[in-house]
């Protein structure tokens, strides 16, 4: 059986395709592990998967899977989808409504002898916890069951790469975490390239160790997830990975920037190599300092006033104005986020409160 497992770079993609209002222009490789593709709606994520699956044709470029060229504009190669052996999980699952679960899973097993196919079907059904549901029709399944059936069907062809288009977005919160676990197990057993499209940073983070951030058809960042989260290269990547606080920045000295929107100077952890356009800080890394220990001249410590707050069951978001009170509810500089218990220690304190923007937490960002 042909397999991508032996090759150093199992999946290699370098394609260009003109879309309605931007050009999808990406070049990357995927190893034998899950890779999250993160991006806002309309960034070209789904189109990228469709190009790999052979459902859309790029304008030019190359797609190589293992040692097979799936697409190569220079050599005039464009394998039809049916010959690519790339499993695709559609956003709405696309289970055939007129076929039972077992018949759906069996669809891709046509070339196998009936007995082999039957064995394989029961293995897949078992592995995706669909035992007992074989004779059900898709419309009689829950969202999670439908998704597992679609996963079993995609895995049936023993695909050399797996593509998942926002597989969790159609599920409610409870099912979502169950399915995440199922996907993690599937990925762990799969050991081939699995591209996983999402617009949810938390999903991306939990499901893969590597990420690729796509924005308007281009790769905005790619690499290990921790690295992307700690040092996002651009404002856009920082925003896509959940950062809420940005200020324009001017370099003052080797390790100081002026945050012009926040009206303060900030020391940064590393010497500045390339002048940043912006400085950013994630909401949960903003520290509050108890009034008794405040050293007003302390490094990156600033007085602030609470403009408003919003709560979720366990956490609170605080909208803060730096330096002086005043303005309306919308006139805030920073959003800080923390557990409610922690906030309880500060909520009775007299104004001004003091926050510290730790040099380690500051992110220097390019345009």
């Amino acid at each position: 059986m042909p397999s991508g497992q032996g090759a150093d770079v199992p999946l290699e993609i370098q394609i260009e395709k003109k879309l309605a209002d931007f050009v999808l222009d990406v070049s990357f490789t995927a190893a034998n592990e899950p890779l999250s593709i993160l991006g806002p709606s309309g960034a070209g994520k789904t189109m990228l998967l469709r190009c790999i699956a052979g459902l859309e044709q790029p304008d030019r470029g190359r797609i190589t899977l293992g040692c097979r060229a799936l697409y190569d504009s220079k050599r005039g190669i464009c394998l039809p989808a049916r010959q690519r052996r790339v499993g695709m999980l559609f956003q709405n699952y696309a289970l055939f409504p007129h076929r039972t679960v077992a018949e759906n899973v069996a669809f891709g097993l046509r070339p196998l002898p009936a007995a082999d196919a039957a064995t394989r079907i029961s293995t897949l059904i078992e592995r995706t916890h669909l035992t007992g549901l074989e004779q059900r029709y898709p419309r009689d399944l829950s969202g999670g069951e439908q998704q597992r059936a679609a996963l079993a069907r995609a895995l049936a062809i023993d695909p050399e790469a797996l593509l998942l288009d926002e597989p969790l977005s159609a599920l409610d919160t409870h099912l979502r975490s169950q399915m995440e676990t199922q996907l993690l197990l599937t990925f762990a057993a799969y050991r081939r390239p699995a591209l996983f499209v999402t617009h949810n940073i938390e999903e991306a983070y939990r499901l893969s160790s590597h990420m690729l951030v796509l924005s308007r058809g281009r790769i905005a960042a790619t690499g290990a997830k921790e690295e992307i989260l700690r040092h996002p290269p651009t404002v856009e990547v920082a925003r896509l990975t959940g950062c809420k606080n940005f200020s324009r920045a001017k370099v003052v000295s080797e390790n100081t920037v002026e945050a012009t929107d926040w009206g303060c100077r900030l020391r940064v952890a590393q010497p500045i190599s390339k002048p940043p356009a912006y400085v950013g800080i994630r909401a949960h890394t903003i520290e509050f300092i108890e009034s008794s220990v405040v050293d007003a001249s302390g490094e990156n410590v600033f007085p602030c006033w609470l403009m408003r707050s919003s709560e979720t069951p366990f956490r609170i978001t605080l909208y803060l104005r730096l330096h002086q009170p005043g303005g309306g509810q919308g006139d805030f500089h920073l959003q800080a986020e923390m557990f409610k218990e922690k906030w309880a220690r500060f909520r009775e304190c007299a104004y001004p409160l003091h926050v510290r923007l730790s040099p380690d937490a500051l992110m220097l960002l390019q345009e």
Partner: protein
Amino acid sequence: MDWSPLWISLATSLTATAITLIAGLAAAAWRERRTGPMMALVDGIFLLPLVLPPTVVGFLLLLLLGRNGPLGKLLLRLGATVVFSWPATVIAAAVVAFPLMYLTARAALEQVDPHYLQAARTLGASEWRVFREVALPLAWPGVLAGTILSFARALGEFGATLLLAGNIPGKTETIPIAIYFAVEANELQRAAIWCAVDIGLSLALLAGLYHWTHVQGPGRAQWSRR
């Protein structure tokens, strides 16, 4: 009483419907994957028999298939004459019924979610298998409705049939033609009997259609056990 018009009508309509079903499905499947300015013209040609008076269709077919027509000459060389034969009744009925089949089949195929077809392709299915095992079963209720409409149209066909096949009792005389000539010969009782037969057939057809779609399937309800 000579019952041959009933059998001729049924044989003609059934054969014409079978031909229309295959041709209409093929045309719809072919057309669905294409776009472009030429396609408007193609649609126009496919739908022309629906809008033209049947006598015009019959006359055009006569020009095409007659002894001096381009197709007629070719057939004559093969030793076959179509005009004023039973196959002529089938051809006339099939051509007139074709647009109904084409329109409904295309609408039915178009409303199949393309994701199903794409999923089938990624699972290794050939285009023929995608059509036969995914598109067609999902479009089937619409295709079936088109088939029944086509059968009804074929059964009622008069103008084109008379021009192309004439009125040869026991050979090309269908029920509508039998009624026309009975009235013309002032045999009103015979005309009334054929009218009753025609009404009975149509009612049976409509009742059968209703039973099939509302009681037995093949609606989407059958894809569920609950």
